[in-house]
């Protein structure tokens, strides 16, 4: 054994504490329930601690997020309500949102606050949302997302493109409703 029991615990705790905000944040964005997120995050920490001797030592954060995601898929997904994975047709229907007329994305994004982003993100179907969270919030690479969600890289690419597209639409709709954008500005 590389570490003694005490060293193992210390090493795990040191690394886990650093990534715990990401673990809890991801759990919260997946479950959309504080209570479920806390349970999920704690269970992920316990599972990770149990399996820590088998951790290959490369990217602890990606490894932890993989545990959270798998745990969510296996235990919590059935209980969740709200937008689920779109159909394959939806997944294929990735189109640029920008048009010939100048889309004031910068204006939209500058005026959007965190809570509005979280609300818009919650409207993105689950598997697309997962890809966006892991890539754009947690900064995982395509390969790490593919490993985390157990899908091929091609699927990660399409889910990410589709997820961002839906998120932009949701933000635009929100901005129009709040008066940041005029109707038709995003068309």
């Amino acid at each position: 054994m590389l570490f003694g029991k005490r060293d193992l615990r210390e090493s795990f705790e040191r690394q886990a504490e650093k990534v715990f905000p990401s673990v809890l944040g991801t759990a919260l964005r997946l479950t959309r329930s504080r209570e479920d997120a806390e349970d999920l995050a704690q269970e992920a920490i316990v599972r990770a601690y149990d399996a820590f001797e088998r951790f290959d030592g490369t990217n602890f954060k990606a490894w932890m997020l993989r545990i959270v995601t798998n745990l969510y898929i296996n235990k919590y997904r059935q209980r969740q309500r709200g937008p689920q994975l779109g159909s394959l047709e939806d997944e294929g229907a990735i189109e640029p949102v920008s048009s010939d007329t100048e889309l004031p994305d910068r204006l939209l994004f500058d005026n959007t606050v965190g809570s509005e982003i979280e609300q818009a993100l919650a409207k993105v179907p689950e598997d697309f949302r997962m890809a966006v969270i892991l890539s754009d919030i947690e900064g995982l690479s395509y390969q790490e997302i593919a490993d985390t969600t157990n899908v091929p890289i091609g699927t990660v690419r399409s889910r990410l493109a589709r997820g961002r597209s839906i998120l932009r639409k949701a933000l635009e709709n929100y901005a129009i409703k709040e008066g940041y954008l005029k109707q038709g500005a995003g068309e």
Partner: protein
Amino acid sequence: MIEPTDLHAYVDGELSPEQMTAMRSSLDTSPVYAREVEAIQSLKSMLRSKTEAPASQEQWKSCVKRLNDIDKTRRTERVIGRFAPGLCFGLVVCILAAGQFTRHGHKGNVGSSDIAQMLSDLTLVRSPKASSLPFDKRAWEKELLRQSEISTPKDLTIREMRSGTFNGVPVKEYSARDQNGDVAIIQIGAPLAIDGMESLSSGSDLKIGSMQGTNCVVRVQKENTIIIKSDRSFKDLAEVAGHIALR
């Protein structure tokens, strides 16, 4: 025509160097795709900068507490695991010792089946009736009484005697009779406590009970156990026992 997924991969830096170069050239000539790239970059930047990690300190403390509990459980399991073979061995030794104690250590404790086993190999002391000599029944009964180690009430005559040893302990069985019928007297050369026997009354040295469905009275006297068996009441048996003594 650029694939939308390629635009996203370009923004994410997930294209090969050659693909990146080709994409840059394409974007230079296509303001629509260039705007799309800018929009994706803005979205990415917004997500990174405006989403905050939730407050997690309290939750982390709960996790640490849970990890402490796990460690405590593991330590306990390790200790038990380490000493389990020893504990099991100790338990087995205790069970065996208790068995030995029950069997031998507590020497007097026997069951009625043990008594039956003790009597199974006794040898009949032959009377001259079997020989060609003239047989005097009364003289033979006197002889049996003389050979026996017990004194009996006057009206109780010993008609047969069997003797032997069991595990080195001398055992004798007398078939006797008085005016009320047959009585079996068993003499074992060791003080025994027989299972299922109860005191006749408080302060009495007589124990009463049943062996193979026959009433019996037991008395321990001079390191010997005397059992009187007969189909009579305990009161009658106790009276007979009161008159039987070891010489």
